[in-house]
């Protein structure tokens, strides 16, 4: 749940007074034209915007009843519980095995058997196990880009998050790989709360249960997908859906 979130990069006001509610165990899409603050909103959920130069946040993001901007929050724990899939596959400079093992390892999993099992489970969950089980020790960059993105998804799952943030995870993929990712996300929504940034409306319509529409840093409309696409309240939403701008 987000209350009155404002984000500035230096003097630039990127997100203006955003308040949204994100339902659990379902897919919420954040849509809007490029540069409207979609990714910024997403990255404030796991405080990855902390890495940005000169960012200032005001307002609250409540997760599990606690404000994540609170100084008492353990940021590594927060990021463990809220996973991120980036726009382009962002592999670690390691083997396929190493990429997935990194997360559990830094959070204290040492038992080799358990680790192996986690890796198999995560790769199974994204349908990659049969494709790579023979070459787990090979460099991850040798995989095709679609496989890389699924590996990133598997890696995010390996630390047992509760929320998955996806920042246009299919925009750099070919249509077939994109479809595979979509299918897996659709399956995963039973167990995870998924927040999905996209700028393709068709994708939002296919996947989401709930939609948030941002325009120039402002929240224009939010609501259940069904209602959002068939009966938008705001005229700007209507125009955007009909393809008049954006």
């Amino acid at each position, binding site marked *: 749940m987000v209350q009155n979130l404002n984000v500035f990069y230096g003097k630039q006001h990127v997100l203006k007074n955003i308040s949204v509610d994100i339902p659990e165990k379902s897919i919420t899409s954040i849509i809007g034209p490029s540069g409207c603050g979609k990714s910024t909103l997403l990255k404030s959920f796991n405080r990855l915007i902390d890495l940005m130069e000169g960012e200032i946040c005001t307002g609250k993001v409540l997760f599990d009843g606690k404000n994540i901007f609170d100084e008492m929050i353990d940021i590594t724990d*927060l990021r463990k*519980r809220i996973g991120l899939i980036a726009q382009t596959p962002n592999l670690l400079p390691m083997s396929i095995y190493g990429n997935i093992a990194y997360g559990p390892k830094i959070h204290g999993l040492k038992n080799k058997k358990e680790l192996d099992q986690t890796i198999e489970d995560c790769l199974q969950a994204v349908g990659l196990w049969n494709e790579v089980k023979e070459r787990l020790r090979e460099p991850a960059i040798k995989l095709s880009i679609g496989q890389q993105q699924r590996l990133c998804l598997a890696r995010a799952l390996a630390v047992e998050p509760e929320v998955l943030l996806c920042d246009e995870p299919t925009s750099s993929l070919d249509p077939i790989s994109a479809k595979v990712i979509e299918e897996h996300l659709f399956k995963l929504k039973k167990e995870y709360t998924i927040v999905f940034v996209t700028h393709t409306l068709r994708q939002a319509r296919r996947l989401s249960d709930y939609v948030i529409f941002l325009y120039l840093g402002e929240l224009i409309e939010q609501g259940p997908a069904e209602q959002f696409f068939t009966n938008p309240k705001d005229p700007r939403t209507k125009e955007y859906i009909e393809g008049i701008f954006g």
Partner: protein
Amino acid sequence: MNKGKLEESFFLGLMLFSILIVVGSLFAIFTVVILRGLPALSISMITQTPKGGYYLGKEGGILNAIVGSLFLAGGSTLLAILVSLPIALYIHEYLGRARIANFIRLSLDVLWGIPSIVYGAFSFTIMVSLRMRASLLWGIITVTLFLIPIMTRAMDEVFKMVPQKVKEASYALGSTRLETVAKIVTRQALPGIVTAVLLSFGRAIGDAASVLLTAGYTDSIPRSLFDPVATLPLAVFFQLGTPYPEVQQRAYASGFLLLILVMFFSIASRISAKKFMKYTIT
């Protein structure tokens, strides 16, 4: 021919010419060193210590200098890594774009430009004031001092090349800054770090001026850190300075061995860097 094409071929020619100068001079140095040194080159050169003194001796070998150079360059390179890697990581990952980072970089650049004889003189002053004698230890200290700016700046440039998204991937999984730096950034930068270390090692093994005052020279292989130590560049220097052509020949043979050593380490580290490179994210 149109103007664009003419420009293109002009600058292409210029680049080829520059490459020719570099490759040509390397080739020329090799030729001279081999032609002049070959008569003096023998197995005993690399298996024996000098007989009849390093200055006038025409017999025996320069094992003392080979071993001495390896000890000195190896020791100081290791020591310099221990100092430089944390500095480079700190200015890069912890200071970020803070003004102090650029001030440190500027200081390192200035230090880089200081001739190694000045480092030698500096260490010599301290050494004498501590009432100590020229030794392997002081040689290593001096060389380490002048390696630090070279290595740190080279590593700094390497860390600049680590893509932001690789770091983000690590942070997004909930790792701390230390974990990200120690396990991900260093790993991604490893091939570059190897190059930086090699560059420094080359400078360490080839430098004569800084060890002239601090490491001394001897005919025997050092048995402890407090013994004086011979080095290849100084061997060349002393042998060339003699009036006897036979000893001068030995200088070229020593130079040849130095070249071979540097080349060996170059090739070895390049091969090992390749091994790590396969994981690197491009």
